[in-house]
């Protein structure tokens, strides 16, 4: 059976405009991903000058990264991001399943939109707003002390790795809900009915049916959260303890010292990590399935 016509084919037909439009996504990828990525790798081996960098080939920045404490900082931030992914999955994916299964079809997109609304507020405001909630004299401590649950304010929430993880989960949870919902939307409702008819319990349905079928979506949401946790510098800056960093902050601090090749090397390492993750994810779950309905 021939493939159905694409959106561009339907709008523009077999004209040159239609053919050009078909290549738009490819041009976009080249202009905004492949070229910047290639430049990042090239610049990362340039030599540092006093104020900029000059063409050359040196692995100094990579050696510096892997033999200094930056590697340790990078691995720590990967660890925090991984924990955030797990927590976001535990909290976010059941919401996606619930919306898909229990909310009437007509209202599902509206409910999901509610989870996306916080994204309309600037990230810095959302993160900074956590401070009056979590700090020494903040809402959480005041409530706990007023209820007599604690006698002293808990100071291990803010300005610790816990604070950064809370910030990451609060900031990126909608990614998991949205990606999870997309994955669940591709799952026909009769799948759940069959499970029920066959007498499968909730846990078995979740583990043996929902999870494998929604895996590409869950993985996509996880990658979003993981990469943002690694890259957004303001989270460790505002919520982390003394010297808390992530990969984004390591690169920013290299730029502050006008060490552009090092900043490029950090970015290149981050991008390689991301591409590696995407490759593994694609091999395991076939990421093209995210947007295709399951039949």
């Amino acid at each position: 059976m021939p493939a159905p016509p694409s959106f561009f084919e339907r709008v523009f037909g077999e004209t040159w405009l239609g053919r050009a439009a078909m290549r738009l996504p490819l041009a976009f990828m080249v202009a905004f991903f492949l070229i910047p990525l290639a430049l990042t790798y090239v610049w990362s081996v340039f030599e540092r000058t006093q104020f900029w960098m000059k063409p050359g080939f040196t692995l100094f920045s990579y050696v510096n990264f892997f033999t200094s404490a930056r590697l340790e900082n990078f691995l720590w931030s990967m660890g925090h991001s991984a924990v955030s992914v797990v927590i976001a999955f535990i909290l976010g994916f059941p919401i996606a399943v619930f919306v898909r299964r229990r909310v009437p079809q007509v209202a599902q997109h509206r409910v999901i939109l509610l989870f996306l609304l916080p994204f309309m507020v600037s990230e810095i405001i959302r993160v900074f707003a956590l401070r009056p909630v979590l700090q020494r004299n903040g809402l959480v401590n005041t409530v706990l002390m007023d209820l007599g649950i604690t006698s002293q304010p808990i100071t291990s929430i803010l300005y610790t790795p816990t604070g950064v993880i809370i910030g990451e989960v609060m900031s990126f949870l909608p990614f998991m809900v949205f990606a999870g919902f997309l994955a669940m939307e591709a799952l026909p409702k009769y799948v759940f009915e069959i499970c029920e008819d066959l007498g499968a319990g909730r846990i078995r349905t979740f583990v043996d049916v929902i999870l494998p079928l929604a895996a590409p979506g869950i993985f996509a949401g996880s990658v979003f959260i993981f990469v943002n946790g690694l890259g957004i510098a303001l989270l460790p800056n505002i919520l982390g303890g003394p010297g808390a960093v992530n990969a984004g902050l390591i690169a920013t601090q290299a730029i502050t010292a006008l060490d552009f090749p090092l900043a490029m090397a950090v970015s290149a390492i981050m991008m390689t990590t991301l591409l590696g993750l995407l490759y593994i994810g694609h091999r395991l779950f076939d990421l093209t399935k995210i947007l295709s309905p399951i039949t």
Partner: protein
Amino acid sequence: MNQFEFNRRVMLQALGGAAAAAGLGILPGSANAAGPLKIWTIGIAKVGAKDWSAMEQQSGIKVSYIAKSARADEAIQKMVVGDGNKLYDALTDNGGGMEDALASQKAIVPLDVSRIPNWKNVLPRYKDGGSAAGTIRHKGKIVSIPYISNADSMAFNYSKIGQELTSWEAMFDSQFKGRAAMQNDFGPTLTNTAIYLQQSGKQDIKDPSNMTPAEVKGVCQFLIEQKKKGQFRTFWDGFQNAVNLLTSEEVLVSSCWEPIQVIARRKSGKDIRYGTMKEGHQAWNNMWMLTRGGKARGQEAAFYKLMDLYLNPWFGARTLGGLGFTPQMTGVMEYVKANPKDFPAAKVKEIELRLKRKAERAAVKGNAWQNVFPKHIRAYQDWWSRVQAA
């Protein structure tokens, strides 16, 4: 060159210069003939009104304000390898050493201070041979005009602590364990710690502004030890962040910029003070510079008019009374007292006290100048990452 050649060449140059000057509008009295002076600076460079209207009215020129971040790297990159000279006629710096970097790359031009009538008011330390003379000169030529300065110190919550703090010892004292903060920037944090270690005789450091790799290692190892003991609540980054740490009482002592203390005190109503540390402070001044492009576009006259205002006590009194920056000219108190309408008695007292504290801080022997690009910056970077990882 013989006498004839000299005379002819000089005359032609003079004629050409005059024609160019007339064309570009840089003859006396033609300030702003080349359009508004495009200034790339930070908000704190203005006083008197929320916008630049008061500054324009006082200086007699029109300005076009372009907001600039507080990052030295961004400014240097824009001016040296970017299009800064096309975009801006004048700019302010972001810390010690930047004027040298920009002048060495010919991004800014030498200045003729004889065209600034109020240059006579500039603090004596900037005159030839003065203690701060080198901070505005490159290879002996004046390339920048100072407009504010300070000596960064430690803010402390007097309401909670109940005593005046006069030593950096407090920052590392176990009684403030988990209630102390320093800046998340290796520049000021390593310099202030080095001043403390040097002056208290704990480490042998020759120049806290420009340390050797071994000295940087010693300072960072000390900070790592303190961090592991749980001394620091956090390292702050950003103005609001630092204010919030003090107002929320998350920290009781914090090394910070003075406006942070001023705002934290104003916002919280608590007695948050800015101490004078007996060991010394990181001293800095901020300056105005004329870009190569600005000069080529004939903006010199307008630039000098604006600089004249920056060395006028009108500006000095307001920057001191507002955010608490040290004015760079003499005659400020005389001006304040002569203008009771603008400065009521209570404000005069506050300004007098502020100025007295500043004079005390500036006089501390162990003060060291801020240096945004020390010689061994790589060692600073690498060791700072170890402090972060500890």
